């Protein structure tokens, strides 16, 4: 099995986060999430200090709006997705306390997005039918990190998730939507945070998730789709949450993830031979961390520094575990 080339990936991540060129401009609409992906990946590799902390914190606050929501960049409109990313960034940078009184506003923002049936829209003024189980997860995860889960109607939240459950045990975007591993992560994650995993038919779902593994070792997001490194996170962490991660071949998955790493410029792509990006780099490394700590897979970590280890990651909140479990 190839080794995880820490130095190369760190260089790739730092370069992507600091180069002000075409890629930077074109990803303005998701920048807050981009920062979250980069920081989490760097932290897992033990090199969080490679990016300027104060500058990142200032950026986060420059995206906080009057209504308590965060936008991906200044001048854009706030949404629940970038609100979660912003809070995750503050947690990683240990700057959550800097929210101060504004914390209440953020909670209000999240609360304002819940519909009467328990589902969530993404931004204020969106039509109430524009719901997505991703938004449910973003809402609940945000409130969990802010220690304010009770701000929303938790029973209805769970009811809506249940309504999105399909014949195969998995979950989709909305009621009636086809099952998709990304949405499964969001639904199972929401239920895990609310301690309602009993809603899930864990054997049936575990089977559907295990079925995502293809002969090449990689996981896909739905039946008959291509393998993609990011499902090493969405599908694998879901399996971990329902305690069925033994149901896939760990070594083959790790080999697949490592084979999607770019030997030249570092970073990990969606599949071998494709162009790497911070998103897949994070979820590939996060997947490897789960395999190492949750499934005892032996990884070869190579770095010019001594004693470099991969940090454990929380399968529900996708943040390094040490931030959440130690006081």
């Amino acid at each position, binding site marked *: 099995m190839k080794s995880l080339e820490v130095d190369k990936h760190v260089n790739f991540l730092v370069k992507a986060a600091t180069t002000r*060129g*075409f890629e930077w*401009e*074109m990803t*303005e*609409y998701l920048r807050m999430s981009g920062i979250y992906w980069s920081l989490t990946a760097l932290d897992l590799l033990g090199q969080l200090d490679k990016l300027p902390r104060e500058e990142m914190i200032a950026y986060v606050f420059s995206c906080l709006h009057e209504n308590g929501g965060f936008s991906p960049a200044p*001048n*854009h*409109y706030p949404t629940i997705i970038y609100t979660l990313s912003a809070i995750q960034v503050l947690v990683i940078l240990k700057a959550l306390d800097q929210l101060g009184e504004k914390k209440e506003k953020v909670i209000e923002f999240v609360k304002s997005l819940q519909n009467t049936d328990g589902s969530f829209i993404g*931004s204020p003024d*969106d*039509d109430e*039918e*524009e719901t997505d189980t991703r938004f449910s997860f973003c809402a609940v995860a945000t409130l969990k990190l802010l220690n304010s889960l009770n701000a929303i109607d938790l029973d209805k939240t769970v009811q809506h998730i249940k309504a999105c459950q*399909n*014949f*195969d045990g998995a979950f989709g*975007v*909305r009621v*009636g*939507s*086809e099952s*998709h591993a990304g949405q499964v992560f969001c639904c199972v994650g929401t239920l895990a945070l609310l*301690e309602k*995993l009993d809603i899930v*038919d864990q*054997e049936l779902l*575990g*089977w*559907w998730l*295990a*079925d*995502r*593994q*293809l*002969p090449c*070792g990689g996981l896909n997001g739905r*039946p*008959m*789709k291509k393998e993609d490194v990011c499902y090493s996170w969405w599908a694998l962490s879901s399996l*971990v949450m329902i*305690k069925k991660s*033994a*149901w*896939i*071949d760990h070594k083959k998955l790790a080999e697949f993830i490592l084979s999607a790493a*770019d030997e030249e410029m570092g970073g990990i*792509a*969606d599949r071998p*031979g*494709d*162009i790497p*990006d911070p998103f897949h780099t994070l979820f590939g490394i996060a997947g490897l961390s789960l395999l190492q*700590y*949750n*499934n005892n897979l032996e990884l070869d970590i190579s770095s010019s520094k001594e004693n470099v280890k991969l940090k*454990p990651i929380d399968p529900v909140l996708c943040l390094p*575990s*040490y931030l959440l*479990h130690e006081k």
Partner: protein
Amino acid sequence: MHGRVKVKTSAQKAAEKEAERARKLQEFQKIKKKLYEPSESKVPTFKQLLESTNEFLPPMADYLSQSSTLAYYMKDWPILWQLRLTALRRMATSKQEKSLETLEQELDLTFNCLVDSPKSYSTWAHRRNILKLIRQFDEEKGLEILKTEVGLTERMLMSRTEDQVENQGRNFHCWDHRRLILNALPQDALTEIQLTTKLIQTSFSNFSAWHYRSKLLNLEEEGVVENEMDLVLNAVFTDPSDASSWIYHRHLISNAPDSSTLTNILKSHEESLNELLELEKEEDNNNLENMPLAWVIQDGLAGYLNSLPIPRSFADVANLSAKDVLHLTLFFGTTGAGAWYLAEKLTTPHRQNTTVKLGSDKVVDTFKTENIDGKAVYCRCWKSAKFPYCDGAHNKYNKETGDNLGPLIIAKE
């Protein structure tokens, strides 16, 4: 970010690409300044204009037409669509001349964007907003357009995009769009079922169509199970390596009401499966990893017909032999390496500690008995938030898993 193949280029080509990108970047930055990025210039941005008044001012029409070309660069940028939507709503509310025409042009714009990027969340949502706006402006026209829209989704689901091998029949955005549109129209389950049948007959591996069927049909209704069984067995015979039809097949077997009809159907197909099995055996070299599903269907099917209990869950599986487990897992359609390892891994011990000092090689806690004051209660389930002390977490854990873990209590006399 997905599916971008890394192609090796010469130094010259790389330089050309860089130059092209720099040009695009400049153009993009110029237009961004017009749309929403404030600068020292006295001309307000489109965003500032929208925020300064509730009316639809003349410059807005200009901005709308200028920013329509930007849509191709920015179709995943909600801000672009949000600004346009605000302006269009204002235009419609103030009953501007040519409102309807402008809204229909917006539909054309989103259509072209979707042909280019069929998975753009914000483009699909914007299109729905425009459809609603048209309906608010002119109810009759709006409904007429919705009916056309339903037909458009069918066209898309049946199509293959020009440069992509991908079948748009799996495009969940399009499926969801269709279902959302249908909420506003009279319910017609039959048309929907017929659409799924058409798609499945075009391609058996269309899981999206099988999924929709699972919502539209009631297995308790007379004749439904037989019909579905027929359709799905047709699919599995045609392509035993297709995962989609096996998942639906499993669903039918698990949830169909018990009946002699079901057993008879399976019995009548056993012979065909045997023939298929022989053919597959000849082609393949007994390589388990590439084993066609039909190969093991026979064992599972025979087992079913001999009243081997089909486990509804893996909890039942514990009572079966490993061989039976393997055969049943494959019978139920798990594909590739996953199936083989699934059976094997069922007996692999699972990690216990998932929360305490995960970075440590070994978590050890030592206490001296003389330091214990009366009684000490230690965690043995590894789930306590107050580890190494008990906090009652074993209760929840036992409930979830059926285990019987409890704490270690050291009590002095």
